[in-house]
């Protein structure tokens, strides 16, 4: 557990303690509400989690990296961005992977495109985001994130 997760736990527990001391009924209601939220999301989250496991097996990050390094810059950029949207790789795998890519001489642009869409755009989280914010919001946010990920990659290509 990293420091930030731990901090959220500690902070929330303190908050809960204060809440409990101030108003038992309200706190109980809040906990019930939290449980309700959990019940409402658990199926969707489990689907996401197992979908990620499946995608990681079918499209291992190392093979994506190998693929990106063999393509032309344009194809690799678009491909990298697209592959980044369907996979969701934890940071401790993504950064070393992209690090080896860049060190191996792969152009910065596709690497950054891949890295940015990896975390910002999510096909697997789309159903859940849609449930929470509606189709239009989700489509626009993810669409714009995708376009801007490519823009970020291009600017970085010029700067580095």
């Amino acid at each position, binding site marked *: 557990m990293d420091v930030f997760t731990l901090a959220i736990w500690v902070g929330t527990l303190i908050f809960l303690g204060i809440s409990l001391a101030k108003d038992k009924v309200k706190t109980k209601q809040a906990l019930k509400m939290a449980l309700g939220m959990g019940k409402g999301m658990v199926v969707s989250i489990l689907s996401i989690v197992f979908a*990620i496991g499946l995608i990681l097996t079918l499209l291992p990050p190392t093979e994506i990296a190998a693929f990106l390094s063999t393509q032309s810059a344009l194809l690799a950029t678009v491909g990298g961005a697209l592959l980044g949207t369907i996979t969701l790789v934890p940071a401790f795998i993504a950064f070393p992977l992209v690090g080896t890519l860049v060190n191996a001489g792969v152009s910065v642009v596709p690497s950054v495109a891949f890295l940015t869409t990896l975390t910002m755009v999510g096909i697997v989280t789309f159903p859940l985001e849609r449930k929470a914010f509606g189709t239009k919001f989700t489509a626009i946010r993810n669409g714009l994130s995708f376009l801007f990920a490519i823009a970020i990659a291009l600017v970085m290509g010029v700067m580095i």
Partner: protein
Amino acid sequence: MTIIKKIKENLFLVIVALAYIIMFIAKPVMGIESVKSSGYYIKEMLMIMPVIFVLTALLDMWVPKEKITQYLGKDAKAKGVFFSFLVGSISAGPVYAAFPMCVMLHKKGASIRNVVIILSSWAVIKIPMLINEAKFLGLKFMAIRWALTIIAIIIFSWITVKIIKDKDLPGEVLTQAGLHINRDACMGCTLCAKTYPEVFEMENKKALVKPNEALDMEKLGNAIKSCPVKAISYNEEKKL
């Protein structure tokens, strides 16, 4: 009929389950591999989701609407943008952990722009991630990507507001007068029916408003507050 409806509602789950079944028949080794790699994400989820739910509910209970509107609302301007980035950056956990939090904040007055900023910065510019990035790709690489990402989020959150209005979000379709339940958001927790059984009842695992004469505003208020997904809304009839 109901089976088709159930499948439609959980389409994503059904697809994932089918993919696993096919995988286990065709390539059992890969199936086992997939379950194994899901393990990390299950751990990640268990570490953060319970605490996020409790924190969201507590904030919902204790932070008044005016405060959220003041710091994250439409008129918060640059202050709102700053606080949104702050909330997103000091957060932990995968992006879906931000969903319940952002739904709550939006219901309490956070603007769409700031919700977009929180969601996006939650996903990409968390501090532990930045440290990791600097380690593997160098400080300069990290700093430039970080700055560009912030600029990008500021621009596209501004564009989003031009396209998306509050009414496009579920739960915001509540401008009609009277008592409404957003049945897409309702997940059948039965809390409202328990809090105010004279008005709310369950039908097909979703809450329903019973025909009613007079409303007890206090009980109704409690029922609205108890709803974990904020699916109940009440607007007083405007008399001209």
